[in-house]
């Protein structure tokens, strides 16, 4: 092994892992309170477009809280107060004149436990496009349903039983159904809160494969407790701890040489 070659090797640059262009989402000094509890403290973060950003950190550190800020899901929690600014494509999503229903169509969400409606597979997908008026005919709606199921890599498994109930599918299939449902309204951003935590390794692998495909067209933010999953699926990672973002950067760097000791202790399993 001739080591002179390695000695001259240039440092990896961040641009190798970072998509070019302006960030899709820019959060500045976001603070979130649940009544008296200060759950997020001065969180500022850029989220790149058409890439996967992973949020990691111990339970209760505010990952889901921040995720819910991005589509204003926190509005539905009475005690919750959000301060600061979050912009998507330069538009302030907390602007009072903004249509929240419209926002949630642009920013889809997939939860930890698959939660299909107790309706047919077809209806699970068709519901969103129908209420948002995305289809002018039955044929168009059929097309949207098929495309969403295809993008979610579920079409081949369900195309012959679209009228069966969604809750009859396996856990992994249900989660892909939920992803298809999120995709069907043509969102720009997809938020995923521990989407694989209820799934077995095979179903998890399929979701990860899917996430990798979806990032060609969507901006994806995923909360995960699996360090390996974050390392596998994301291009950037943010580490949350006690309501603050301790460190954010290219995933490769976070998992090979994090800058902050708290990040290192967490990802290497040194505190709980």
């Amino acid at each position: 092994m001739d080591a002179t070659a390695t000695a001259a090797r240039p440092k990896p640059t961040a641009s190798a892992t970072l998509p070019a262009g302006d960030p899709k989402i820019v959060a500045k000094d976001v603070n979130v309170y649940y009544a008296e509890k200060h759950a997020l403290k001065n969180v500022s973060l850029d989220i790149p477009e058409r890439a996967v950003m992973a949020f990691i950190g111990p339970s209760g550190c505010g990952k889901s809280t921040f995720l819910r800020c991005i589509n204003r899901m926190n509005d539905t929690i009475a005690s919750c107060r959000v301060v600061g600014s979050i912009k998507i494509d330069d538009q302030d999503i907390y602007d009072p004149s903004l249509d929240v229903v419209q926002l949630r169509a642009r920013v889809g969400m997939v939860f930890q436990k698959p939660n299909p409606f107790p309706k047919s597979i077809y209806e699970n997908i068709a519901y969103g496009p129908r209420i948002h008026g995305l289809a002018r005919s039955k044929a168009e709606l059929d097309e949207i349903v098929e495309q969403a199921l295809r993008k979610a890599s579920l079409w081949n498994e369900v195309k012959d039983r679209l009228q069966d109930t969604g809750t009859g599918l396996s856990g992994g299939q249900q989660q892909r159904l939920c992803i298809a449902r999120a995709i069907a309204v043509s969102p720009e951003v997809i938020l995923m809160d521990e989407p694989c935590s209820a799934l077995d390794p095979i179903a998890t692998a399929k979701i990860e494969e899917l996430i990798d495909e979806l990032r060609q067209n969507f901006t994806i933010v995923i909360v995960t407790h699996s360090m390996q999953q974050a390392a596998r699926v994301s291009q950037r990672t943010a580490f949350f701890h006690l309501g603050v973002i301790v460190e954010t950067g290219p995933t490769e760097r976070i998992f090979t040489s994090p800058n902050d000791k708290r990040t290192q202790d967490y990802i290497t399993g040194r505190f709980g």
Partner: protein
Amino acid sequence: MAMTDHIVSSFDADLQTLGDKLAEMGGLCEKLVGESIEALLRRDIPLAKRVIEWDRSIDRLQHEIEENGILTIAKRAPVAIDLREVVAALRIANDLERIGDLAKNIAKRVVALEGQFQPPKLAGGVAHIADLTLAQLKEVLDAYTQRDERRAMEVWKRDGDIDALYNSLFRELLTYMMEDPRNIGFCAHLLFCAKNIERIGDHATNVAETVYYLVHGEAVTDERPKGDLAGAAISYD
């Protein structure tokens, strides 16, 4: 040291085992390099044969470190400093295994030299380069144990000295060969031994780079220091 305090304590134990085996291997390597040179300078054939025999222990340790390292990766999926610890152990074990081979090659030449005309003054230059290389090897292994990348980089910077010394030794031995053809056989053997020693220095430099990577998480980017290349006309293996 960085390898303690995991929530899963058997992970610490895995890393500790790797570290212990590597320390054992490093110690053995220093011993073999030292003794192969001693055997050469004193023409001690029984010692040379022992070196050849001991090299197997180094090979065995390298296999064990490799198996343990791979198993740790499979079981624990280490990241960050833990991943670098395992990768560094695998890399250093590799370099040490090569160093063991080079010491064994020197010892084999000692055995082959038996009965040849051997003017003692000729070996002086080899003793000098050997001292320097052995010091480098000791220092870099200490730097690894201490996770002290500054000491490692000092070793790294000094590798050029060994190269330069090798090149001047090369010229010196050529002169002896021209002076008296009876010197040729012995000098040629010495030259190969010196080349082996110079390569041991290169592996010590590899270890220094690994220590740097272990501490900083990135590769050394500067060009490696080189002695002048006059002797590079002969290269073998």
